[in-house]
């Protein structure tokens, strides 16, 4: 079991049809990610990073090829089944945090649990536990607008962790943060790695890439390289 990859892309192609022109946003991309890996996906803008992340996040389906998530081929799942996969197997962390403004910190963290059908008491308990783990001790009933960027991103991370997903998908999680709070968030990711969480992070910052186990570079929708970092 532990040998089976958590994420497995097999010749995934995503084609956009714009009138007469067809554009391959992804072209025959294949790679595996195993449990506990911390993967950085890098490349210049327009290289297909976002498309790849959307497919990995079950928000979009590949035009061709197979995508196995936790051993299940999700390439042809319908909308309901994909929603179910997102809710139960994936955790999203966004560059702009994407917190729901009218909800407070705990309620934001509870959103994925709500769609998984957890009851109020249980989800409240789990949300508090996760909030403590990401260092959101006191500000549990504040609205997102009352928090700093770093704190908002902590809420985002807590929300991604609360349903205990197979994979964390992070899209430039430090892109909107100043360097010091960015560093704090990256430290948090290091901690998550040490807890054997599987992380796939899209970034264009080489320094961040260096902290990961492995860097996948994309260019024009194709995989350019796939290198493993050797940490001291």
């Amino acid at each position: 079991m532990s040998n089976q990859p958590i994420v497995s892309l097999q010749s995934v192609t995503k084609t956009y049809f714009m009138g007469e022109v067809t554009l391959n946003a992804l072209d025959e991309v294949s790679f595996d990610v195993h449990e506990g890996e911390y993967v950085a996906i890098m490349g210049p803008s327009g290289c297909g990073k976002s498309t790849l992340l959307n497919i990995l996040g079950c928000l979009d389906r590949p035009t061709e090829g197979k995508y196995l998530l936790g051993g299940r081929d999700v390439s042809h799942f319908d909308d309901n089944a994909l929603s179910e996969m997102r809710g139960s197997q994936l955790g999203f962390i966004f560059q702009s945090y994407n917190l729901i403004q009218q909800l407070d910190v705990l309620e934001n963290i509870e959103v994925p649990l709500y769609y998984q059908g957890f009851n109020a008491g249980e989800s409240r308990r789990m949300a508090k536990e996760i909030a403590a783990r990401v260092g959101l001790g006191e500000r549990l009933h504040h609205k997102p607008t009352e928090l700093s960027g770093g704190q908002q991103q902590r809420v985002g991370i807590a929300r991604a962790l609360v349903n205990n997903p197979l994979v964390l998908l992070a899209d430039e999680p430090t892109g909107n943060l100043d360097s010091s709070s960015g560093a704090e968030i990256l430290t948090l990711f290091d901690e998550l790695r040490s807890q054997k969480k599987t992380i796939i992070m899209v970034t264009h910052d080489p320094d961040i890439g260096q902290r990961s186990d492995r860097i996948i570079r994309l260019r024009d929708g194709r995989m350019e390289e796939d290198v493993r970092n050797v940490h001291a």
Partner: protein
Amino acid sequence: MSMPDPRALAGLFSFAKIRRAVSLGFKTLWQHRLRSFLTMLGIVFGVCSVIAMLAVGEGAGYEAQEQIRQLGSQNIILRSVKPSDTERITTTQSRVSSYGLTYADMTRIQDTIPSVTVLAPGRIIRNHVWNATQRVDAEIVGVTPWYTDVRTMNVVSGRFFSPVEMEGHSNVCVITAPVEKRLFPLSPSLGRNVRVGADYYKVIGVMEAESSVGTSQSGNNSATQGTNGGYAPRIYIPLSAAKSRFGETLMRRSSGTFEAERVELHEAVIQVARLEDVEETAQIINSILATEHKQKDYDMVVPLELLRQAERTKQIFNTVLGAIAAISLLVGGIGIMNIMLASVTERTREIGIRRALGAKKRDIVIQFLIETVILAGTGGVIGVIFGVIIPVLISHVAEMVTIVTPWAPALAFSISAFIGVVFGIYPATRAANMDPVEALRHE
């Protein structure tokens, strides 16, 4: 590390989940209080006007029906009418016109129709009734002792006159409440005497006033002494006394003209044993009278028919009101849909986030549908409250009878909730069918 149970299916439509969705809906709407309130107004006014209009309609219908019912639904009422073509003689001569119902008619009806149980003939003389210097313009109605059997008015105090007093042509009278109020404003009237013309009548009873439907027409026909038309309160005396004191010829003098009318009976109230026989009996009476009265000098009123007519009128009225109601609620519903569509666009990103976090299309539909239903439902409740209060104000200010039937608020409210669902479906499905990727990218 254990994975969370896939409880999605089990808990999808659970009560707890819906309850949380409802509280989220309230929270979201509360954040845009003013907008939510303005959106609700359409439904508030719609529901409120429906209930108020129905209450006014119901009240008006009730008043009409009560008046007709007072005439007695088992009754057939005959009245003498002066035929129009014999009236106008251009020469300034005296003339006696003779018309109307006769005692012979009464006997004929009584003898030929077995379904007639009570037959109460009456004479009506318009005259002034005096108590010392107090005067009232009234209809002096000569009736039989069994008159009270065919009419629904009650004797409030004292009694109605007896067959003995009828036999004896006694000068006794039963006055109605308005007459008592005018002639005896301070002291009790029972046992006192009132004067009509040259004769004194002893007051032996006081009755409720008769409904105006029964009297205004007969007042026109039997007018004497120059006081023409209009509603006049009544006093009742024995028919025998009316016959011997006033005779059968009534005079009317005006400049240069001398007119007299000879009328035996002004009205007759006929009671039929069974309700089903009323209409048929009315037809038979009509055909009996038609043979004797070549000129149409009588008029027949069947309260049952009037009642049915009033009911039909009320039904039409309610249908029209229902249509207006439907339109006004429709307008309210469209207003809500409009705002919800704007709200969906405004919250595109939130929809994207929720979809990314595992919300199914169905979850999004429910979320927006619940908001619409809350708007329409709350508007409905407020509308019902005002709709119940406003008829009360109307009856106070305009002195109209209004009746809020229990089903009117229930109907109005359920229509408003229904409208919430109908007009919520489109914005909600539009929200649910957004592409999550596009929605997340939306600024």
